[in-house]
């Protein structure tokens, strides 16, 4: 009995506030937009019993999804989100790997401090971290001031409100997610393997490429997914740092909901985003499981 209560409380909570809301999103994605409160039809009327339910079902359709395929704004937004997510994942890997490597090769007594320095930004407000780049990247911002005073450029660079700024923002905010799994993979690496490779005639670079990189593969994969998955639906970074040309699906969903007040279309956008995300999430779970099996 006690066990049942223990299971039931979190279970019912999650069913009511996680699963049911999703079913509602699916249902509204199949509804039509209307000038009403709430702004969609049909609404389920249980007072008419079964007849009301079937009438309700018969009014649901896939019109919104057809609409999404017809209007190329949505296609472009999905594709451009994918492109931005892929490019920024690669950039984060390029920036993050040397840092993780340096941490794993640092003197033992330094490692805890370095680790804390990587985690610390994660506790700081995400919004503020993104915001901090607005002052740096703007036309009269600190970066342009610095470059102009050094005489490297004569005209201020336009970085804020472009995709470049979005990439910088994503790499900056998601960097700890990339560093931590790679660091934990590299830290476990047995250094005698590298010595063996060098004894066998590998150059340091070849040894790195043939031994270190493959052995940190799990960390690279985990880090990449941890960056890629949240980036795909990112809203804050493209809205603050990106320009009007930066198309990302999180931003489209937000605008569809708050500006256009088209709830059914916003829901359909959410459903498709979810379907796109299912693939990387499953791959990520598999990678985690493989890692656990390898360790256990």
């Amino acid at each position: 009995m006690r066990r049942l209560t223990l299971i039931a409380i979190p279970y019912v909570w999650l069913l009511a506030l996680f699963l049911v809301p999703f079913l509602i999103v699916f249902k509204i994605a199949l509804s039509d937009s209307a000038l009403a409160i709430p702004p969609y039809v049909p609404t389920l009327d249980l007072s008419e019993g079964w007849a009301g339910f079937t009438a309700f079902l018969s009014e649901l359709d896939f019109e919104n999804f057809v609409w999404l395929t017809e209007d190329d704004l949505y296609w472009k937004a999905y594709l451009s989100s994918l492109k931005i997510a892929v490019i920024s994942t690669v950039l984060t890997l390029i920036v993050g790997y040397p840092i993780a490597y340096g941490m794993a090769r640092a003197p033992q007594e330094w490692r805890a401090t370095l680790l804390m320095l990587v985690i610390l930004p994660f506790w700081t407000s995400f919004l503020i971290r993104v915001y901090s780049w607005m002052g740096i990247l703007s036309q009269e911002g600190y970066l342009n001031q610095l470059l102009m005073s050094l005489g490297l450029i004569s005209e201020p660079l336009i970085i804020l409100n472009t995709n470049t700024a979005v990439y910088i923002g994503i790499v900056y905010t998601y960097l700890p997610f990339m560093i931590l799994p790679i660091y934990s993979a590299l830290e476990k690496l047995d250094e005698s393997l590298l010595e063996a490779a060098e004894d066998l005639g590998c150059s340091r670079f070849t040894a790195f490429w043939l031994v270190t990189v493959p052995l940190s593969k799990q960390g690279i994969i985990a880090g990449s997914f941890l960056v890629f998955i949240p980036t795909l639906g990112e809203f804050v970074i493209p809205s603050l740092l990106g320009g009007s040309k930066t198309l990302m699906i999180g931003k489209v969903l937000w605008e569809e909901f708050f500006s256009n007040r088209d709830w059914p279309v916003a829901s359909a956008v959410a459903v498709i985003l979810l379907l796109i995300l299912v693939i990387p999430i499953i791959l990520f779970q598999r990678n985690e499981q493989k890692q656990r099996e390898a360790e256990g």
Partner: protein
Amino acid sequence: MRRFSWFNATSLTLGFAFLYLPMIILVIYSFNASKLVTVWAGFSTKWYGELLRNDAFLDAAWVTLKVAVMSSSFATVLGTMAAIVLVRAGRFYGRTLFSGMIYAPLVMPEVITGLSLLLLFIGIGLDRGVLTIVLAHTTFSMCYVSVVVSSRLVSFDQSLEEAALDLGCTPFQAFRLVTLPIIAPAVISGWLLAFTLSLDDLVIASFTAGPSATTLPMKIWSSVRLGVSPEINALSTLMIAIVAVGVITASLVSKRAAVKQQKDERAAERAEAA
């Protein structure tokens, strides 16, 4: 004695400069006297004064704090229960669905979580305000709490709890007197994580807050959309300072606790050997 190699020292320096410079610049320029945020015009703390006189910000900060304390406390209770279920309850009907619902919110885009909860609240006719934000935050933070707590529970020696039961404890007493003290560090860090997640959240709060409640991130958001402002710089500095002090204190405390635990364990080993 191992040293930093030239390459590692460079990559670490550049890496940490990248991670910290933007925030350091933000902190420095929060003391700028000029209204023009990118032009330095001498040291001043006047923006902090302006901030403290700005009632809208203070109200929003108060709402945010209330939401964060309530949601992280609920999330800690629910998340700890969920962790115990995941690790201890064994097989039960719908277990796969349960663990799926624990892990899914961790990777769910915030826009989707926010949208779906809003549609639920409107569907059941719940007035949006502090309550709905608390419900929303509790739901996604409890998943983080349960991940943190369950990783501690997995490594915990169950025979201790069994011994307590054999010695006549009720299951609840065994939990309160044996299990809880051992998993306490994980429960506390779970609470802290939930608290910061709630303080930080913009997207889910924007969807689930009605016109009657505005959280600090929502207030910051509507202000920074218009550009950089010295008041926001001052506010950011305060938030960064609070987090830095909090994290450093927490890590010192946990370090001391770890040292103490090691000592105790060693003493126990010696006692056993004797």
